């Protein structure tokens, strides 16, 4: 993935709570076996029905519990492919949050009041290293786990990092701790 450091620019706003991944990318688009090209199907029904309008700005401000429901990583793929580099919200669903960090789409948690301020400002600058969102209304801090931050700033492949630690996995397996479970290949 691409390293991300500073994300700066205009803000799009989706002021709804509990936006689920079925809305972000409806199921009929999950049949593709590729990883790219999902942006044009983002919020397919809502945009096509004229319920919402969204500009492909660098930053999206969303409502609480954004990305709830299905674990489909197609949702972050679609948001990123559409043009968003960061999503600012009061809270995210766990799997969605994790999926975003794996592809270099920054999920930043600010409280409701600060989310509103960023939305109203219309423009913002997010500094991943400093963990701040700066807009006309002020400078707001968010938190990101140190290892996630390290990966985002350096654009590192999670698997590559884990494989550097392959010795620990080998040791865990040879200790017998991984034994005793079902052997799927013997069924």
């Amino acid at each position: 993935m691409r390293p991300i450091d500073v994300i700066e620019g205009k803000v799009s706003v989706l002021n709804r709570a509990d936006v689920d991944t079925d809305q972000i990318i409806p199921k009929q688009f999950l049949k593709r076996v590729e990883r790219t090209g999902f942006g044009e199907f983002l919020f397919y029904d809502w945009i096509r029905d004229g319920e919402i309008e969204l500009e492909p700005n660098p930053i999206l401000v969303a409502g609480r519990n954004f990305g709830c429901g299905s674990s489909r990583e197609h949702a972050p793929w679609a948001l990123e492919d559409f043009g968003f580099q960061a999503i600012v919200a009061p809270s995210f669903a766990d799997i969605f949050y994790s999926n975003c960090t794996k592809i270099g789409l920054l999920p930043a948690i600010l409280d409701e009041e600060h989310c509103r301020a960023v939305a109203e400002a219309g423009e913002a600058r997010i500094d991943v290293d400093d963990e701040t969102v700066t807009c006309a209304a002020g400078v707001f801090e968010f938190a990101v786990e140190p290892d996630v931050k390290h990966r985002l700033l350096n654009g590192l492949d999670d698997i590559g990092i884990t494989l550097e630690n392959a010795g620990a996995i080998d040791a865990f397996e040879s200790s017998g701790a991984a034994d005793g479970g079902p052997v799927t290949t013997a069924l």
Partner: protein
Amino acid sequence: MPKTMFDKLWEAHEVSDGLIYIDLHLVHEVTSPQAFDGLRMAGRKVRRADKTLATADHNVPTDGTMAARLIADELSRVQVETLERNCEEFGIPLYSLGSERQGIVHVIGPELGVTQPGMTIVCGDSHTSTHGAFGALAFGIGTSEVEHVLATQCLVQKRPKTMRISYAGELGAGVTPKDLILATIGRLGTGGMVGHAVEYAGPAIESLSMPGRMTVCNMTIEGGGRAGMIAPDEATFEWVRGRPAAPRDFDAAVERWRRLPTEEGASFDTEVEIDAGEISPMVTWGTTPGMVVEVTNAVPDPAAMDSPADREAAERALAYMGLEAGTPMTEVALERVFIGSCTNSRIEDLREAAAIVEGRKVAGSVRAMVVPGSQQVKATAEAEGLHDVFRSAGFEWREAGCSMCLGMNPDILIEGERCASTSNRNFEGRQGKGGRTHLVSPRMAAAAAIEGHFVDIRDWS
């Protein structure tokens, strides 16, 4: 210090700080193709094919198409064939269309006995929490993580917080595990469990059958929970005993499993207490599983809601659902009924529904279908004659798959159709664009199919 079951599961699988070993990785056709592509591009192998198991479930037709190459929808065919090729290439056992072990991934795991207490289990599907019913740590992951587990058999995880929901008392007659979990989500909200591994406990949980426990853990994700789990006991051990993947030295395994439950005095980050005796049959009225009421209640009035955000969400939900505030739920008429999904498609669910419809007819205004969770559930049901009961009543009897829970196959609602569904999500468009989903238990769905509207199963005969 006394430990929770979660603490024990986590610590037994920690390879290094924040790196968790995975005992079982379940794979299906929708969230895996890009992960296999990633492996190929990086020249990586699958580390432990012997701890990986695949099936085709999300977009398989349920009309009797018995091989991937015969699937009429081209994109679905390509996706299932891609899974077959990937499993062949990487040596992963697969139960695809045509296999007598094919079925919904969360139904076949427990059915084959590969789901066992004390394990860590992941799958690129949010309802992986189902397997927690066995005293396992089980949760859904995204495709990047699927690739990570394929390559390393491990997962980078932040340790979640812990929550215990204790249910005092017992469920009343006609009240099911589905009602228990819907009532819980209604109370805590769709984000109420976010960031937590949730343990369900108390007398009302201990007295549940394994399928009932699976229904409860299955919907943990609808409350935002990372994982749901229930302490293993005799019912758990009896379920696993004799299944194809059951441990050879079963007694030794049971001895290990008995050490898993949360110890007296262990502390949780959050504790919730619910009186199971006060739970009624539940029906959702809106577009999240948290928008739910007792069947004896009416569609809520957004104007009576305190928070502006809740009011706005409720207004939008009612407009989508085509419902008026104040309408009694028992007067809401239906066009469709779906009995199926990883929440409620096991043999026990079908038996309960069949007992309701036996000797009766589906209302003329309703199209109803039963989709067994797996080929084995289907075979068992047919051996018991349940298919005849359903068919005589006017239900369609289908092949195994996820089907209309998410409508990736041809089983979908058309715009405006209203459906009583035993599945897990009533999101907008989930079962088809413009489709209106009401989540209920199998008994409530079966009775609604007969009457053409919701009924209180407790006083219906």
